[in-house]
C-alpha cells in the first residue's frame, strides 16, 4: 500500500467497484480480443445486474471495451461512441452460478469473426480479477503485465515457457495453471514484474505444444 492507494485512483464516478472496476474489466476484454469489437454481449450478475444503470456500470464496461481508461471523461458517453465505432452492444442482467456479486461476462466479436469471452469480477477499490477466458479458469488482476498461454498438457511445456521468460530477464510474480483433463488443453496465466515484449511472445508461440499466447499490458 502507498499514498496513491489512499488518495487515488483518479476516476470517473460514482463507484470504484461499479464504475472504475467495470471499465478495467471491459478494457481487459477488449485487449484479449486484440482487435476492434463489432459486437458485445455483456451479461451482468449480482449487484452489477441490479444497480448497473444507477452506477453507469454498463457505460463503464462499454468504455473499457473501446479501450478507455477509468479516468477518461468520455466514459459517460460511451454508448454513443460505441455506435459511432460500429460496435453493437447487448446488456443482459443474468445469474452466473457461484460468481462474485460484481461480475460481468463479456462476449466480444471482431470484424473478422474472431471471438473471445471474458468473465471478470470487480473486487473493491477499482481492483479486478479476470476469472475466465473462453470458459477456461484464469486469474488476472490487470495490475501486472500478463501472459495467457493456451497449450497442450504435455511434460516440459511449462518449463519451456518459464525458461523463455527467464532468458529475457522477466520475473514471474504470479503463476496459475488450469487444464480440462490430463493430456488435454491447458492454460497458463502468468503475471510478471517487468513488461513482456512482442519478440518474447513470438518465441513462446513457437515452442512445442503451444496453441496460442496473448500478452496483456496492465489496465
Amino acid at each position, binding site marked *: *500500500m*502507498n*499514498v*496513491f*492507494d*489512499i*488518495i*487515488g*485512483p*483518479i*476516476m*470517473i*464516478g*460514482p*463507484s*470504484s467497484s461499479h*464504475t*472504475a472496476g467495470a471499465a478495467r474489466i471491459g478494457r481487459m476484454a477488449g485487449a484479449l480480443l486484440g482487435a476492434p469489437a463489432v459486437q458485445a454481449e455483456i451479461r451482468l450478475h449480482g*449487484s452489477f445486474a*441490479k*444497480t448497473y*444503470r*444507477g*452506477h*453507469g456500470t454498463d*457505460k463503464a464496461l462499454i468504455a473499457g471495451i473501446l479501450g478507455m481508461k477509468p*479516468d477518461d*471523461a468520455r*466514459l*459517460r458517453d460511451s454508448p454513443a461512441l460505441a455506435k459511432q465505432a460500429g460496435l453493437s452492444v447487448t446488456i443482459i442482467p443474468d445469474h452466473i452460478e457461484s460468481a462474485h456479486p460484481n461480475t460481468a461476462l463479456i462476449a466480444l466479436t471482431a470484424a473478422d469473426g474472431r471471438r473471445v469471452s471474458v468473465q471478470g469480477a470487480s473486487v*473493491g*477499490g*477499482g481492483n479486478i480479477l479476470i476469472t475466465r477466458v473462453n470458459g477456461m479458469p484464469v486469474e488476472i488482476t490487470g495490475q501486472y503485465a500478463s501472459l495467457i498461454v493456451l497449450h497442450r498438457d504435455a511434460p516440459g511445456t511449462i518449463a519451456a515457457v518459464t525458461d523463455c521468460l527467464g532468458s529475457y530477464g522477466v520475473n514471474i510474480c504470479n503463476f496459475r495453471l488450469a487444464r480440462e483433463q490430463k493430456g488435454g488443453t491447458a492454460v497458463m496465466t502468468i503475471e510478471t514484474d517487468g513488461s513482456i515484449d512482442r519478440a518474447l511472445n513470438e518465441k513462446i508461440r513457437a515452442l512445442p505444444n503451444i496453441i496460442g499466447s496473448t500478452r496483456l499490458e496492465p489496465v
Partner: protein
Amino acid sequence: MELRYNNLAGLVCAATESGRQISELVLADQAEQMEKDPEFLFQEMDRRLTVMDEAADQGVQPDLRSTSGLTGGSAYLLRLAAGSGNTLCGSVFTRALARALAVSELNAAMGRIVAAPTAGSCGILPAAVLTMLHDRSVPRRACVMSLFTASAVGMVIANNACLAGAQGGCQAECGSASAMAAAALVELAGGSPKMAAHAVAIALKNILGLVCDPVAGLVEIPCIKRNASGVANAFTAAELALAGVTSAIPADEVIVAMKHIGDAMPSALRETSEGGLAATPTGRRLAAELFGM
C-alpha cells in the same frame, strides 16, 4: 529511515523528534519505498489536487444531475448562499460545504474525481484542502504536502481497520476521510503533529457508528450530504485541536474501536441497502421507481 504506518503515535513521534511535518517524512519515505524521485511523487500528488479543484468547479453547475436523476444541484445552492453573505457560520465555511457537495455530486453524475479514500467519500478531503488554498491563501505547495499527511492517516486506518463501507460502514469511508482532512487542516493551519493526531481522534470519534445505508445501492442518498457533514466535522476537530483541546482516547485506540464497531455492525447496515435509510418507505419507493427492486 523506513516509516511504519501501523500506528499514528509512531508517525507523530518521528515528526516531533525530527522537528519536521508528518508530510515531509511521508514524502521522503514513500519516494524511497516506490524507488522514485520525491519531486515525481510531489507532482503526482499535485495532479490529484488539480483534479480535485476541477471537480469542485464542475460540480457547482445548477443543472448537474446524477445518472439516476436522484441528486444534483445542492452545491449550487450552497454557492449562492455563500455569495449572498447571509450565512450562519460565515462564507468560508459555507464554501467548504459547497465544495464537498460539488465533488460528491459530480461523482454521482459520472464526472472525474479522486477517490479519497473512496469515491463515496471523495468530497471531504478536497473541500478541506481547497478551502485553505482558495479562501485562506495557503500556498499550493503546502496544500499538496498536506495530502501526504492525509494519506498517512488513511494508511494507518487501512492497516488497523478498513476504508470500505461494505466492511466497516460509513464511519470507515466518510469517517476516515474526515479524519484525514482534519489532520491536513491542522498541518495547514500551522499546528503540531501532536495536534494533528488529536484532530484525527476527535474527527473519528464524532462519526463512530455511522452506518452505510445507501438508497437503491447508489452513492447518492445519504452519501452526498454526509460529505458536507464530513468536512464540517473535519473543521470542528481541527479547530478544537488547534485551540489545544486534546482527545482523552488516543487516535490509535479510536481507530481500533472503529474496527470493532464495524465488525459488530449487521450486514443490513453495511452497503447492502437492506436497512437504515435504504429501508425507509421513501428509500424503498425510490429504489422501486429506479430499478423495480
